[in-house]
């Protein structure tokens, strides 16, 4: 791929219409999830296995003591260095040519390692029941409509956005646009920033946020958990080497004592008196 594409979300242009949520459900054939009233206009607390994007509604008191009603289209970030991909024991999670991160449900065993290691908590397990009545689970999340990208279409949420809060395009151009937008809105939102966190190698969803990430419940410095790096890059390969080493050790003992030095300990009686 010559061009790297990202989804650019300018939350300051979002009017909270939730068309992106509907478009996502529609394109991906996701069932509706009945929810209790959560105390605000927000429909779901966070993304779930059947709701891959959720529009956040945040009532925020700004530095001038005034109310800011903030919206954010939330979905998988498609990290360049994705913790979920790292920890998956079945290699069920992979990067596509578009830089999107997708789950292969044929390989997924529903262990939930990805769910517990995602720095943004966007992955969820869905429980299924097979024809014998047995339950099984699969991890689900936004695919960035990779099936649409493959056909030359843009993600469903982007296509449907009527305020132009979302765009899908060349990474460099999108980031440039984001930086210019931040300059434009600095008067209105002094804390405005581009959110494209380095700890996960940058993301394929780049935001212009009106406030600090924590206001949106996002980590300020998300990264692949150190535990995941130590686990997958060190502990596991070392563990495999160790069992190999001790196995070689006992094979060495066996050969040495039974074949090479055979009988030596028996001459003149061994010391097992």
């Amino acid at each position, binding site marked *: 791929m010559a061009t790297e594409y990202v989804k650019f979300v300018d939350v300051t242009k979002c009017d909270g219409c939730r068309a992106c949520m509907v478009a996502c459900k529609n394109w991906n054939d996701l069932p509706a999830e009945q929810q209790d009233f959560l105390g605000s206009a927000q429909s779901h607390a966070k993304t779930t296995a059947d709701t891959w994007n959720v529009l956040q509604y945040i009532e925020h008191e700004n530095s001038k003591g005034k109310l800011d009603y903030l919206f954010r289209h939330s979905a998988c970030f498609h990290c360049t260095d994705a913790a979920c991909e790292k920890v998956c024991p079945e290699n069920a999670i992979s990067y596509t040519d578009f830089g999107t991160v997708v789950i292969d449900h044929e390989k997924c065993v529903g262990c939930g*390692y990805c769910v517990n290691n995602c720095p943004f908590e966007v992955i969820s397990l869905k429980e299924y029941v097979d024809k014998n009545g047995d339950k099984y689970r699969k991890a689900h999340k936004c695919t960035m409509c990779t099936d649409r990208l493959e056909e030359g279409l843009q993600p469903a949420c982007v296509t449907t956005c009527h305020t132009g809060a979302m765009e899908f395009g060349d990474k460099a151009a999108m980031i440039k646009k984001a930086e210019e937008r931040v300059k434009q809105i600095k008067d209105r939102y002094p804390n405005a920033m581009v959110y494209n966190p380095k700890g996960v190698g940058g993301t394929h969803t780049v935001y212009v946020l009106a406030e600090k990430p924590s206001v949106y419940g996002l980590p300020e410095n998300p990264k692949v958990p150190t535990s*995941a790096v130590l686990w997958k890059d060190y502990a596991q390969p070392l563990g495999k080497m160790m069992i190999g080493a001790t196995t070689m050790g006992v094979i060495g003992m066996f050969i040495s004592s039974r074949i090479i030095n055979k009988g030596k300990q028996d001459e003149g009686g061994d010391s097992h008196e």
Partner: protein
Amino acid sequence: MSKPQKSNVKVRRFSKAFVWAHGINAISFFALYITALPMYTEFFDWLYPVLGGPEGARLLHRIFAVAFVTPTFIWVIFDFPGFKRWMKELVTWKKRDIDFFKEVAKELFGFKFKHVRQSFFNAGEKINSFIQIFTAILIIASGIPMWFPEFFPAAVVQWGYFFHNVGFGLAIAVVVGHIYLSVVHKHSSPGYTGVITGEVPAWWAKGHYTDWYDEEVAKGNFPDIDENGNPKKPTSPDSKKKKGA
């Protein structure tokens, strides 16, 4: 073997409680290893259908996880003196333990060696005990947040995965040696029978754990024996047990 036949006189080495505790520990350890193996390396993914799919493997792993926690309690409750002796042996280190390692290396590779007088557990068993205690704590403590992630902060669960991996990686590497020494290594086979029946030949006990054996003789628990394991005195203490023949 040109040597005279060894006597069948046996002595009790392990209590029934220890035999059960050790057996449950061993079986649950391997069951846990096998039910998790396809998660560890994709080479063993064919085990999923054998184990009833990922769900079946997960269920079995949790059942054996509970079993894996019980041996310590079985030992403590039903044979506290034995458990206490284990603890005491683990903290007792003398020159004989250092000498043991020099000689055992020769023995294991089939060279001539001499037995170093050992107490109830030899230095190698003590090292094995330390590693198994350490790794069991790691595995159990990290397994709980992995099982119930909803009750723990994300960081605890994430570190749980790491420590679980470190724990069993170290444990299995050591277990390979532990099993080789008991099942394959020819000088230790009475020890393997012993950990299942609780009893070992007197001559073997005296040869491998001389200090312990002499102690028990002094207490009047074990018969004093000659080189081939036959009692020296015509009348031996009551607790002496004869098997076979």
